[in-house]
């Protein structure tokens, strides 16, 4: 059944009467038409109570019917805080009201409202903290539980959301009369136009408001304009699409469906219209009290009669258009309460009066009266206005089930203000005006203070022409349109009541006195009023409260409304799902070209930045055994490790050597071709930030490696300094272009030799720190003799797509020697045995080279390198700490973990940076920062180990293994 309140055609622009839809609200079955929203379908069945308010749990229902308030927020299929007045129904939809204890109709927490006078503005600041700790232990949990609107579904997984870029010459936000006019103008000139409207149907107010005595005028106008636009070229129209923010340089997010469009527009015209504003009086939040435009939307868009007997509260002539609309659909008009003393009536108002409707001029609705269950409007009390915001002592009671408020508007200024616009306010027009827009942003229509339809249309054209001119079109720009109509905003539709409940902010249940009292307590700036009272912080972000707040604060503090202003309009315009902004997410991960070989070999993979690297090869519970076997195999035999993640940078050009001289601490200009040198990078503070090797393949070509995690920074710094120094050098980041392995161990030469035809691997021809180019297993390769793990070893770097082939070839060639792969954890153990540090692990953000045995890597004779001056200055001061090697001789003691503290008595003197049980040394070995006194070999230091157990460690000379370097020099 369609519902008792359903009107006949032609009403119902958005509904399809041929399709009925069944859904549930609060567990009861309802039926609506396709195109109905939750609120319209329920209203058709005379169900007006939709939800409960934030603080006092007051019954709430339709208010704007445009998704601009929180009164209709419902939970739909478990999704909380859905705007029920714009959310479409669909078959089987399960809808619930929100924020109640018990049932929506019988909310046990509604009692709180009775105590509202004991809950003054900011009441939670005034108490709840005695005795000390009472807030967090007693009150915060209670208040947290009462607060909050919907229950978020923590089991839900967001659906698929994505993003798309768009570009246009001119974007028009808002497809009402001004927007349609602007779009047509721009399209006719040949510009690429994007027209975005948050509503389902273009037309804006033409779809629901009444512009003439004839009820068809607006519909005909809309039909013509939409038809004209759809015939135009170069226009893309997006409806049901909301432009939710303005970011620098016309960067505009538009949400439609499950997609976020990111639009870069050369010019933008905002035709965002106005938001009708409520009057402030006692019980102005009762279901049945709504904006005039809300009633019109119900009638025209959804064919729902908004009540049976109505009072219209008018502060302008638009209220009479509402009255006429109501009469047309059979609603009895009990009275028009006219706020103005001496109204100037237009034709529509005259037509209403001609029908004999009773009009109370100079009167206000003093209070709304509820039915006995408090769920709906039953009557209003009308009183004469005797001064600003003041009513006479007695009044007249008029029964009604609908009160429509038409008392004024506020421009939809949010996007403009995000772009830096300023708001002005004149007392005689009682409406905000917008100025100070960026040059590429224009406004037109009612948002620009135009009220007459013809002027709105001309303003749209004018703005479009101004934009087109800036786009380079030879087009005439007419002078700015000047509004000729009386402002439809009434200056003070605010009436206090001794019992309060005159709501200024419906989202937060803030009454008139709350705003005024905030200023009395000293919170006078409107921003402080917001923060103290929470006005404007709720889901509608002050859309329905900012104007009244500005007026009240201005009045209470003796300033003008313009001086008072509104709190900052921040993006987004309307609440938006986090999932829309997240989209598909982009967290890339990197695999080396040998990745699959590691996985096949049973490696445990660990994350290193974006890379995945093999930690060790074997079951995850057998780390220590795997590491022991892998490390002993390197020491005694031969092992293979993937080093592809190491950063690779090609440095070329006549100044390449000089460039490295300045970037790194050591000297490079005289480095022979065919040799590598260790590189250390320091920052301006003299702190060690990266290391690697520089391989010289040609006079003007170095291949520089950097750490896995550090290469991006090294590359950025190289580019920055290169630009500053203007050296003739070229830097290319080739990490992803090369992959590599390190084959290490006493049998590494023997294995590699079987794969090399054109490189002599003998110790004489290819010594330690030598570099060569040649072929390995037929693959073009760069070979480097290195000693990181302390054995004879070669790094072999090849173009990345040869990775698996290289890996397979070496594994096959080494099979007879029982080669086995080793992982990063094993490599860390091996290098520790050899006393080599890892930048980032064995250094921190304060580490100077001398503290970590790198003084030798500083060339003191060259004139400059980054950090040189700091290092020189630091060198003049006494050193405070040093990285020293230690062993733990007590094999029963818990092995210290990395970052355990080194103590001197109770004082922290350093920390362990690396520590492993070394199968080669036969005991735990490690590196730790400590004082110079502690760092004397042979002395004992205390380490605070797991569980606070003190472990005694013995300081030893580094390295732990092969101090004569015989193994790597084989």
């Amino acid at each position, binding site marked *: 059944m369609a519902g008792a309140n359903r009107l006949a055609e032609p009403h119902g622009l958005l509904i399809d009467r041929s399709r009925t839809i069944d859904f549930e609200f609060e567990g009861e079955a309802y039926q609506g038409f396709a195109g109905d929203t939750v609120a319209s379908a329920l209203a058709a069945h005379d169900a007006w109570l939709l939800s409960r308010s*934030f603080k006092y749990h007051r019954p709430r229902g339709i208010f704007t019917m445009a998704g601009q308030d929180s009164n209709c927020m419902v939970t739909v299929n478990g999704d909380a805080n859905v705007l029920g007045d714009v959310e479409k129904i669909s078959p089987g939809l399960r809808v619930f009201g929100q924020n109640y204890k018990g049932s929506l109709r019988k909310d046990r927490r509604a009692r709180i409202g009775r105590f509202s006078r*004991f809950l003054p503005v900011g009441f939670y600041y005034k108490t709840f903290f005695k005795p000390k700790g009472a807030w967090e232990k007693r009150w915060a949990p209670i208040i*947290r539980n009462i607060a909050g609107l919907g229950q978020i579904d923590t089991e839900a997984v967001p659906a698929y959301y994505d993003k798309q870029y768009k570009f246009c010459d001119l974007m028009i936000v808002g497809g009402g009369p001004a927007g349609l006019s602007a779009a047509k103008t721009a399209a006719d000139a040949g510009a690429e136009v994007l027209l975005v409207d948050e509503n389902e149907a273009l037309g804006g107010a033409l779809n629901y408001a009444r512009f003439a005595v004839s009820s068809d005028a607006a519909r005909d106008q809309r039909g013509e304009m939409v038809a004209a636009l759809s015939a135009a070229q170069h226009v893309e129209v997006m409806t049901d699409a909301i432009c939710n923010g303005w970011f620098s340089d016309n960067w505009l997010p538009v949400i439609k469906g499950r997609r976020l469009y990111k639009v870069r527009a050369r010019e933008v015209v905002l035709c965002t219209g106005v938001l009708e504003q409520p009057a402030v009086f006692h019980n102005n939040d009762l279901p049945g009290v709504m904006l005039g435009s809300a009633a019109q939307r119900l009638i025209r868009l959804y064919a729902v009669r908004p009540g049976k007997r109505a009072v219209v509260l008018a502060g302008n002539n638009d209220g009479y258009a509402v009255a006429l609309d109501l009469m047309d659909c059979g609603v009895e008009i009990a009275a028009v309460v006219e706020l103005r003393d001496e109204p100037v009536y237009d034709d529509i108002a005259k037509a209403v009066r001609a029908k004999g409707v009773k009009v109370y001029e100079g009167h206000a609705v003093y209070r709304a009266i509820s039915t006995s269950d408090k769920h709906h409007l039953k009557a209003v009390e009308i009183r004469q206005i005797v001064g600003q915001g003041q009513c006479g002592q007695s009044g007249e009671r008029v029964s009604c089930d609908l009160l429509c408020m038409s008392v004024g508007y506020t421009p939809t200024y949010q996007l403009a203000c995000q772009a830096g616009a300023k708001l002005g306010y004149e007392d005689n027009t009682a409406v905000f005006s917008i100025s100070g827009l960026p040059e590429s942003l224009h406004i037109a229509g009612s948002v620009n203070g135009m009220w007459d339809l013809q002027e709105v249309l001309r303003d749209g054209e004018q703005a479009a022409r101004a934009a087109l001119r800036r786009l380079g079109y030879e087009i005439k720009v007419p002078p700015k349109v000047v509004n000729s109509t009386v402002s439809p905003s009434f200056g003070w539709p605010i009436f206090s009541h001794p019992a309060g409940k005159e709501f200024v902010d419906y989202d937060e249940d803030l009454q008139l006195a709350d705003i005024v009292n905030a200023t009395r307590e000293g919170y006078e700036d409107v921003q402080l009023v917001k923060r103290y009272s929470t006005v404007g912080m709720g889901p509608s972000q002050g859309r329905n409260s900012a104007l009244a707040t500005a007026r009240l604060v201005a009045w209470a503090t003796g300033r003008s409304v313009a001086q008072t202003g509104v709190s900052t309009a921040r993006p987004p315009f309307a609440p938006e799902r986090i999932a829309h902004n997240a989209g598909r997410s982009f967290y890339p991960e990197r695999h080396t070209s040998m990745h699959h070989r590691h996985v096949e070999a049973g490696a445990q993979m660990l*994350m290193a930045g974006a890379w995945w690297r093999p930690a060790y090869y074997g079951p995850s519970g057998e780390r220590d055994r795997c590491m022991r076997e892998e490390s002993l195999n390197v020491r005694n035999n031969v092992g293979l490790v993937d080093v592809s993640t190491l950063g690779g940078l090609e440095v070329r050009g006549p100044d390449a050597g000089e460039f490295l001289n300045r970037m790194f601490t050591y000297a490079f200009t005289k480095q022979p071709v065919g040799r590598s040198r260790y590189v250390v990078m320091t920052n301006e503070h003299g702190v060690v930030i990266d290391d690697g090797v520089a391989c010289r393949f040609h006079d003007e070509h170095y291949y520089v490696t950097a750490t896995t995690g550090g290469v991006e920074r090294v590359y950025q710094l190289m580019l920055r300094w290169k630009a500053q120094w203007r050296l003739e050098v070229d830097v290319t980041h080739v990490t992803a272009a090369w992959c590599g392995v390190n084959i290490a161990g006493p049998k590494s030469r023997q294995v590699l030799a079987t794969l090399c035809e054109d490189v002599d691997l003998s110790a004489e021809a290819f010594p330690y720190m030598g570099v060569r180019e040649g072929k390995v297993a037929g693959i073009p390769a760069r070979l480097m003799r290195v000693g990181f793990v302390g054995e004879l070893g070669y790094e072999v770097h090849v173009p990345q797509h040869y990775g698996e082939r290289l890996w397979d070839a070496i594994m096959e060639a080494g099979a007879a020697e029982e080669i086995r792969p080793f992982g990063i954890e094993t490599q860390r153990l091996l290098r520790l045995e050899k006393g080599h540090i890892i930048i980032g692990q064995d250094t921190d953000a304060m580490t100077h080279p001398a503290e970590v045995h790198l003084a030798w890597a500083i060339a003191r004779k060259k004139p400059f390198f980054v950090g040189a001056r700091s290092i020189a200055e630091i060198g003049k001061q006494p050193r405070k700490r040093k990285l020293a090697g230690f062993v733990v001789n007590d094999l029963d003691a818990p092995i210290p973990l990395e970052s355990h503290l080194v103590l001197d008595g109770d004082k922290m003197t350093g920390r362990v940076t690396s520590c492993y049980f070394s199968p080669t040394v036969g005991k735990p070995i490690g590196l730790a920062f400590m004082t110079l006194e502690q760092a004397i070999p042979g002395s004992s230091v205390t380490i605070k180990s797991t569980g606070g157990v003190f472990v005694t460690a013995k300081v030893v000379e580094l390295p732990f293994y092969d101090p004569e370097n015989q193994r790597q020099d084989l």
Partner: protein
Amino acid sequence: MPFALLKYGFSKKYPARHSFTPRKDLNQHYDVVIIGGGGHGVATAYYLARYHGITNIAVLEKGYLGGGNTGRNTAVLRANYLTEEGVKFYRESLQLYRGLSNEFDFNIMWENRGQLTLATTDAAMRSFRWRAEVNKHLGVGSELVDCQQIKELVPLLNLSENGRYPIIGGLWHYDGGTARHDAVAWGYAKAACERGVELHQLTEVTGLKITNNRIKAVQTNRGIVECGCAVQAVAGTSSLLAGMAGIKLPIHTYPLQAMVTQPYKPVLGPLVSAPHVHVYIQQTSRGEFVIGGGSDPYPLYSTRSTLEMKESLSSAIQELFPFIGNARLLRQWAGITDMTPDYSPIMGLSPVDNYYLDAGWGTWGFKATPICGKTMSELVATGKVPDLIKPFGLDRFYRFEQVNEAGATAASH
């Protein structure tokens, strides 16, 4: 219902007391001029008035009380820093926070919710263990936790091993918590004004009059004010104001953004931080999720917010809590942060004799508000730098004695 509220319900006239200095002209002279009416400025004024008997103080604020970073931060209170100097300093601050409501007779809503920082790499675990060990040694409650413990602390967290960033452990700072940021500034201002301090809002300092290396007066948009000494506490514009005093600060200024959702019923207790995706979150006592992250990538003196940051914060937080994708964002905003090279503040003496610095607060200013006010007031009153802030003097940059907290600040403000 607490008794304190009864008077509001039973009084005929609203029993309001004006909490701050009513609008009035500036005096010709103040013993102390504090530039900046944020948390730090009013806290310094409060401690001077309360504990040092100095009340002829003007706090000059160019906008409104607490409208800068005090009102823009995400109210994360913690002391799980890395250096001994830092941990001791923030430890004292947390201790003071616990007693503020009762000291002010104004509820700042301190809640000891605990803060959890997540690790996805062994490098992160190593750095967390370092912080935990230093914290424990200095009496600050921090410990390493494994995935099982994390599951108990924050059951809604995505702990799947198949995600892009499987969580391997975390740093549980059970001393951490939150408070209502605005209320901290208001409480200090109220308590200071009660003791005779003058708070002048909409009063912008436009110049400093310095002769013989001493500050004599400050020029404002409302006229010149003489002063016995001056303190600058202006956060994001620190380097600009110090510039007026001829002082060059080693500060780079970056915007820092955050965003907030609609209110929902409480589901998240602890504060959760995930440096690997540069995001952190807490659910306020109103039920909103407040989400923040790292600083903007390039320096700027601007509080505009960006779409890019909103996108990155959104995808990051959805990695941690998939359900939150359905929550609706209400607002995003930005503050301006004055970042130092070592992520520690610059406090204490300046090259100008009677001009004191309270700057370099980057992303860690709010949590230091009480201790900063306390120590700065001691400095102003006695002329001696309190031990607790000695390490944070500007001269440390000339002596290569930085207090490096780089490892303890990333995306965990």
